[in-house]
């Protein structure tokens, strides 16, 4: 066994990827093209409805996998398919090895199977002296390079035509032109021979249909058809999660799979095989056929309330296609065998903690994957769950433990923040070590200017600046969040005028504290619960219409997580609290009347680009309101391509992977710069920190403002 990679080695590999210009460009083109491709493929269809249905089908099948397995097995017997159930990856390899031995097979052709990749089948069979040839073009290329696939659907997406030409020149012993059509023809010729010579064909299965004992395989190249036609033996390998009751469910999933994977309506070939068909070179004129089912932890996972969702995956690869981290570093740093968001999850369950430890951290939690998942899997939540599992096994880091202690007592917590403002004095001109935001004083963090903790937090200023509204039309309280209370009080101050215009009576309960999101992200659930209850109690006695927050992260956390964290004892209070929470722009949009339509505010006709905070757009599904609110004040909103892409801060993500964070940020700012915007507005202090810090460092002529600052 190779020694597990250290975090340092992993970071080094990530850095190498960032320094590979071809990879960067290829990933970037792909990320942009995919959006349009997918949208076109789903045109006229209710995507969410399709996703829900796929999720329902998969979840119901996973729960009854055993029954479906028995049913398939019975039909398979009638169809002369030999059925095997492998408990582990090794068992599966051993079974396939013995099928080869019993049938006297020496040469094997394979069509693409992620399950075969999962069990490292090729290496096993080659060790036994068998010749194994991958026939999917991309898989063949990575096999020849002795690599794994870097994408579930496009295994060689990390390679250039030049690299492929060099590789094929080596393989054929003949100089090959750098021409994609020609290179494809080289593969056609080389591999055609392999099919005819092969004794055995190995495929995966996209669908395993219980009621007829049929397997369904989708390909674009047509290689699976040759693999299941020319050799005398066919072995299909698939996880038990691929079982479906009938072809109806398979047809439905197949309607979604290609659209979500590559923006195709359907793949070139979909093949349905119900047992051995005619094979003129086989004994008895029929092929020998085996179905190897792989468990490898799946049956246990199927019984897990939270993680069974991971088995709904239909392997479309979309979660990688939209991931801002994948876009920067490619698949080989974004998974072990399975790539993308789902890879960060399944690696832990299928390939163990050693292989999952570092990659599981490489997620900004932006939620883009969840938005496009064909099976509606809550990927960020499961990744977070895997991080928690790893942390529970490895031990919690000191900073999390400290946070836990500190958050229990608000006075102590805020006292520390206040003293931080004094302690930072010698450095506060440029950068500072925040104690609650675990920023590190390192060179790698230097890509953005970091703001200082203010000497007078918002809570000390509130009484003096709160507008006196005579007969209020609405009663609100502010939830400030730590960053705006202690670092960006100006965001809240700027909002006061708009509250006054809205005729709002504003309160600021002094007992409010951190929302608890940072604690939850560090796996400190108990601390998150403690502050949730503190906050509920802080607002409980007030007669309020809304609890307004200017921080999208707080808003999302208070809305979704607090009711869950509060537990049975505070259930009612928690719900009453959460229901009142509203993001600033949504509040203004709801209250807007003639007074808001003050176009003179933006009289200079300044162009404003919008950065949609992850917690606002995907966390709360809010897209229109902030842009409308800005436009109503006379600003010119300009659309940008990367408006909804994560800024790369993502709490402690930018501390763990500063170089990736830096590149995500650079991409974002370049996009805004191209739009010619004067102002980049957003609604989360964390995003302001990242974006403003980056704009300042790069010396850009763009002002990064919170939406409240724009409106004032």
């Amino acid at each position, binding site marked *: 066994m190779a020694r597990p990679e250290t975090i340092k080695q992993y970071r080094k590999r990530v850095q190498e990827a960032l320094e590979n210009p071809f990879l960067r460009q290829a990933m970037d083109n792909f990320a942009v093209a995919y959006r349009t491709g997918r949208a076109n493929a789903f045109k006229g269809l209710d995507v969410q409805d399709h996703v829900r249905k796929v999720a329902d089908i998969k979840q119901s099948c996973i729960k009854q996998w055993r029954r479906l397995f028995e049913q398939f097995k019975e039909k398979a017997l009638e169809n002369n398919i030999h059925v095997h159930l492998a408990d582990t990856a090794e068992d599966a390899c051993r079974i396939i090895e013995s099928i080869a031995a019993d049938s006297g097979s020496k040469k094997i052709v394979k069509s693409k199977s992620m399950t075969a990749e999962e069990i490292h089948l090729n290496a096993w069979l080659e060790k036994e002296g068998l010749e194994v040839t991958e026939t999917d073009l991309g898989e063949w290329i990575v096999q020849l390079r002795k690599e794994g696939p870097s994408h579930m659907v496009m295994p060689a997406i990390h390679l250039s035509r030049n690299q492929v030409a060099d590789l094929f020149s080596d393989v054929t012993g003949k100089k090959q032109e750098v021409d994609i059509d020609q290179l494809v023809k080289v593969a056609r010729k080389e591999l055609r021979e392999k099919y005819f010579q092969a004794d055995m064909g190995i495929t995966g299965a996209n669908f395993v249909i219980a009621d007829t004992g*049929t397997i369904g395989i989708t390909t674009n190249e047509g290689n699976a058809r040759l693999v299941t036609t020319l050799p005398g033996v066919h072995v299909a390998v698939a996880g038990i999660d691929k079982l479906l009751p009938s072809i109806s469910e398979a047809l439905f999933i197949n309607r979604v799979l290609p659209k979500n994977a590559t923006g195709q309506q359907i793949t070139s070939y979909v093949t349905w095989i*119900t047992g051995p068909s005619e094979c003129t070179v086989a004994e008895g004129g029929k092929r020998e056929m085996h179905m190897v089912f792989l468990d490898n932890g799946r049956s246990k996972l199927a019984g897990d309330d939270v993680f069974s969702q991971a088995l709904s995956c239909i392997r479309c690869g979309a979660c990688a296609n939209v991931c801002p981290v994948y876009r920067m570093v490619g698949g080989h740093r974004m998974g072990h065998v399975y790539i993308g968001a789902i890879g960060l999850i399944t690696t832990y369950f299928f390939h163990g903690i050693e292989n999952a430890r570092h990659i599981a951290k490489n997620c900004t939690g932006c939620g883009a994957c969840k938005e496009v998942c064909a099976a509606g899997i809550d990927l960020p939540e499961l990744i977070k769950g895997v991080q928690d599992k790893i942390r529970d096994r490895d031990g919690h880091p000191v900073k999390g433990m400290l946070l836990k202690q500190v958050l229990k007592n608000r006075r102590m917590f805020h006292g520390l923040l206040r003293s931080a403002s004094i302690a930072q004095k010698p450095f506060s001109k440029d950068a500072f070590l925040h104690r609650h935001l675990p920023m590190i004083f390192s060179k790698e963090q230097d890509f953005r200017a970091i703001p200082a903790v203010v000497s007078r937090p918002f809570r000390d200023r509130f009484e003096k600046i709160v507008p006196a509204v005579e007969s209020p039309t609405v009663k609100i309280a502010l939830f400030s969040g730590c960053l705006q209370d202690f670092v960006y009080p100006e965001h809240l101050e700027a909002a006061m005028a708009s509250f006054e215009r809205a005729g709002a009576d504003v309160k600021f309960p002094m007992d409010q504290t951190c929302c608890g999101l940072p604690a939850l992200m560090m796996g400190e659930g108990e601390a998150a619960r403690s502050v949730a209850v503190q906050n509920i109690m802080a607002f409980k006695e007030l007669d309020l219409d809304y609890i307004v927050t200017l921080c999208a992260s707080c808003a999302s956390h208070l809305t979704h997580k607090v009711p869950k964290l509060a537990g049975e004892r505070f259930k009612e209070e928690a719900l009453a609290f959460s229901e009142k929470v509203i993001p600033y722009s949504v509040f203004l949009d709801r209250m807007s009347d003639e007074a808001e339509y003050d176009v003179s505010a933006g009289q200079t006709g300044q162009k404003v680009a919008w950065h949609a905070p992850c917690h606002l757009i995907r966390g709360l599904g809010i897209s229109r309101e902030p842009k409308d609110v800005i436009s109503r004040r006379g600003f010119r909103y300009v659309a940008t391509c990367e408006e909804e892409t994560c800024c790369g801060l993502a709490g402690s993500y930018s501390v763990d992977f500063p170089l990736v964070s830096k590149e995500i940020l650079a991409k974002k700012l370049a996009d805004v710069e191209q739009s010619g915007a004067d102002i980049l507005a957003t609604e989360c202090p964390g995003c302001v920190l990242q974006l403003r810090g980056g704009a300042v460092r790069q010396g850009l002529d763009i002002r990064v403002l919170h939406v409240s600052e724009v409106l004032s």
Partner: protein
Amino acid sequence: MVNRFTTMAEQVSAFVSFPADLEQVFEKCITLCTQKKPCSRDGQKTIASPDLASDHMAELNNLCLKNGIELVRENIRQYEQGVDLGITLADFAIAETGTLVINSDGEDRRLASMVSDLHVVLMHEKDIRESAFDMEDDLKQMTGRSGSYTAFITGASRTADIERVLALGVHGPLELHIMILREEIWHGPKP
């Protein structure tokens, strides 16, 4: 429905035509075959047609003889370098995706559609269905038979595995030609 089918099939680079009768079909096949580069090293061109009725085969064979083309019906496996043109018959077509549904239980039928450079599929207009969901019963019957091999074919073999650039004809046919017949030339199950 036939228009939708045609649009969708052409979107994935299939060539769709509406020959008036079999004579036109065969003429077209001969033209396609004579115009292409041979796939065998010795230059001999081959058409594989496992499914045509014997009188139709005789007709096609006459044309092939005139043009120096070999016509084969079986043992397509011996053509390791492939055949120039393969003719198969579709059972159904799906308008929504431009897909052909072909019972491919027999090895020769399968190979004629896999190792041919040009794949010609004959189909009846009446066999077009709106979507796969509108023919679930037929599909259940086709896939429910033991030993069955049912193929959905949509366009030519394709790949985008090198730099996501689309290339046709990686393993299967380089071109797919769909010929839609308004009149039936075979009835019920394929001859």
